[in-house]
C-alpha cells in the first residue's frame, strides 16, 4: 500500500511540474535518502528563525527559507524531513546525517575548509544589546561610549572577534556558552552589553529581557566581515550546486527579501553605530 501511494504521488509530481522535474534531475540521487530532502536545524531552534521550535510549521525565517529552497530544488513540502544537530556536530569533519543544516551558521573561511557552505541566504547586521540602566548611564551608538562598557558574548559566535575589532573594550570580555547565558549575565549585572545578529538581538530585547535596549547596529559595510548565514553541508557535498542555484534564484526573484520582510521586519529602526 505504501509503495503504491509513493508511486502515485511520484507520477503525479512528474505530470504536475516540468520545471520541478528539471531541477529534480540536479538533486536526483544526491540526497541522503532518495526522493527526500533531509534538513537539520538547532535543538532547540529559536524565534524568529523557527517559531515554536517547530520547523515543519514553515513559520519563522529559516523554516520558510528551508521550504522555499526545497521547493526551488523540486521537492514537495511533504518530501522534506527535519532532523536536529548541535552546532559542534555541524562543523566537525565527517559524514553528515542531513542534506543541509541551517541554524544561523556564519560563513567563515576556516569553517569552509571542513564543511561546505551554500551562498548566503541572509546577511545579518550585528546589533548591540544592553539594558535600560546602561542606556540611561549614557551608552549610545558611538564606539567611544561603547568601549567603556563591560562586554560579554557567546563564545562560539563571531561576536567576540567583532567586539574586539570594532569596539575594542577597555575591560576584558566575559564569554558564555550561548545567548541565554549571556542574557543571564546581563541580568546579574555582570556585563553591560553584548553583540548579536540583529534578529536575535530583537528577540532577546523583546522577550527575554524586561528592560532590553538595542543601542545601535553595525551595517555590513562597517564590518570587515559582515555576518552572512549559509546552509551547512558535508565537505564536498554533491548537492551544493543545486542548493546554490536554488538560493540564487530565490534571491533574484525577491523571495528571500519577502521572507525577510515577513519574519524579520522589526529589524529596522535600530540606529547605526558611528
Amino acid at each position, binding site marked *: 500500500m505504501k509503495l503504491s501511494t509513493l508511486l502515485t504521488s511520484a507520477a503525479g509530481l512528474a505530470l504536475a511540474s516540468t520545471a520541478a522535474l528539471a531541477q529534480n534531475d540536479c538533486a536526483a540521487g544526491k540526497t541522503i535518502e532518495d526522493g527526500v530532502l533531509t534538513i537539520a536545524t538547532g535543538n532547540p531552534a529559536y524565534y524568529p528563525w523557527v517559531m515554536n521550535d517547530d520547523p515543519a510549521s514553515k513559520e519563522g525565517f529559516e523554516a520558510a527559507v528551508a521550504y522555499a529552497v526545497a521547493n526551488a530544488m523540486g521537492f514537495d513540502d511533504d518530501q522534506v524531513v527535519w532532523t536536529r544537530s548541535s552546532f559542534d556536530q555541524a562543523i566537525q569533519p565527517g559524514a553528515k546525517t542531513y542534506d543541509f543544516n541551517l541554524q544561523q551558521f556564519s560563513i*567563515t573561511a576556516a569553517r569552509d575548509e*571542513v564543511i561546505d557552505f551554500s551562498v548566503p541566504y541572509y546577511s545579518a547586521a550585528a546589533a548591540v544589546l544592553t539594558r535600560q540602566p546602561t542606556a540611561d548611564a549614557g551608552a549610545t551608538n558611538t564606539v567611544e561610549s561603547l568601549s567603556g562598557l563591560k562586554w560579554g558574548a557567546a*563564545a562560539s559566535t*563571531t561576536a567576540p572577534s567583532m567586539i574586539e575589532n570594532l569596539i575594542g573594550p577597555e575591560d576584558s570580555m566575559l564569554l558564555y556558552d550561548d545567548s541565554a*547565558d549571556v542574557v543571564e549575565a546581563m541580568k546579574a*549585572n*555582570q556585563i553591560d552589553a553584548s553583540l548579536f545578529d540583529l534578529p536575535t538581538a530583537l528577540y532577546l530585547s523583546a522577550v527575554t529581557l524586561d528592560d532590553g535596549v538595542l543601542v545601535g547596529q553595525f551595517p555590513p559595510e562597517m564590518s570587515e566581515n559582515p555576518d552572512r548565514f549559509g546552509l551547512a553541508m558535508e565537505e564536498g557535498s554533491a548537492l551544493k550546486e543545486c542548493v546554490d542555484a536554488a538560493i540564487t534564484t530565490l534571491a533574484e526573484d525577491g523571495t528571500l527579501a519577502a521572507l525577510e520582510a515577513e519574519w524579520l521586519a522589526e529589524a529596522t529602526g535600530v540606529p547605526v553605530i558611528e
Partner: protein
Amino acid sequence: MTLQEKTDGAAAAAAPPRRTRRQAYETRVRRRSNTVAAVSTALVVLAIVTLVPMAPGWEAVKKSFFNAEVFAQTFPRLVQAFLWDIAIFAWSVPLITVIALAIALARDTRNPALFPLRLFGILYTDIFRGIPVILVVYLIGFGIPGLGLPRPWNSPYIWGTVALVLTYSAYVAEIFRSGIESIHDSQRAAASSLGLSQSDTMRFVVLPQAIRRVVPANMNMLIALQKDVALLSFIGPVEVLRQAGVFKSLLANFTPYVGAALIFLSVTIPATRYADYLIARQRRERS
C-alpha cells in the same frame, strides 16, 4: 625495623662484590621481562602509528585535531589563559581546607548545644555532594549576583570560586571526617587520661594524625579541582577551556582543545604521580 635495616646495610657494605645466586637469577628475570615489555610496547605503538593513518578519515581528523599550524598559533594564548585556572585553583585551596575542616569538626561534635551545627554539617555535605559541580557553578554564579550585588562583588570569579569551594569543601570534609574516625579510640583515651580537654585532644592528638593520613586522598581531590576550575568558563571567565572554544569556532579546528588537554596533563600527570607516590609510601609505613 630501623635497627634491622642498619645491620643489613652494614652487611652489604662489608660483603664482597660477588652476587648471590638469588641476585643473579633475579637480574636475569628482570632483564627478560624488560625485553618483553619493550618489544610489546614497540609493537603496539607501531601498530597505532601505521594503522590509524590508514583509516579513511585520518587526513580530515589530522587536519582538524592535530594541526601544527593552528597549534603554534593558539598555544601561547592558551597557556596565558591557563594562568587564570592556576589563580582560581590557588585561592580556592586554602578556603576549601579551612571550610572542610570546620565542617568535619561540626559533624564530629557530640555536644548537644552544638547539635544545630552538626545538623548543618550533615545537610551541607549531603547537598553539595549530591549536585553536579556545573549546576552549583551555574546556580551560584548567576543566581547570587542576580540578587543585585554591585560590581565588583557580583564578579563571576568570586561566585564561581564560591561554587567550587562549597562543592569541594563537602567532599574534603568527608575525607577529613573519615581521617578523624580512623584514629583509634585508644589515642583519645590516652589523651583523656592525661587530663587533656576534648578540644585539646582533637587539636593536638587526633587532627594532626588524621590530616596526615588523608593527604593522598586529598591530593586526588586537588587534581579533580584543577580540572573542574575549567567549569567556571560557563559563567564568563575566559580561562583555557573557553579560550580553546573561542579558537575552535574562530578557526573551525579542534586542535586548540588538544592544546588545552596537553596543558592540563602537564599539571595533572605529575600531581597524580606524586599522589600515588604518597599513597605507596603511606602503605609502606603502615605495614
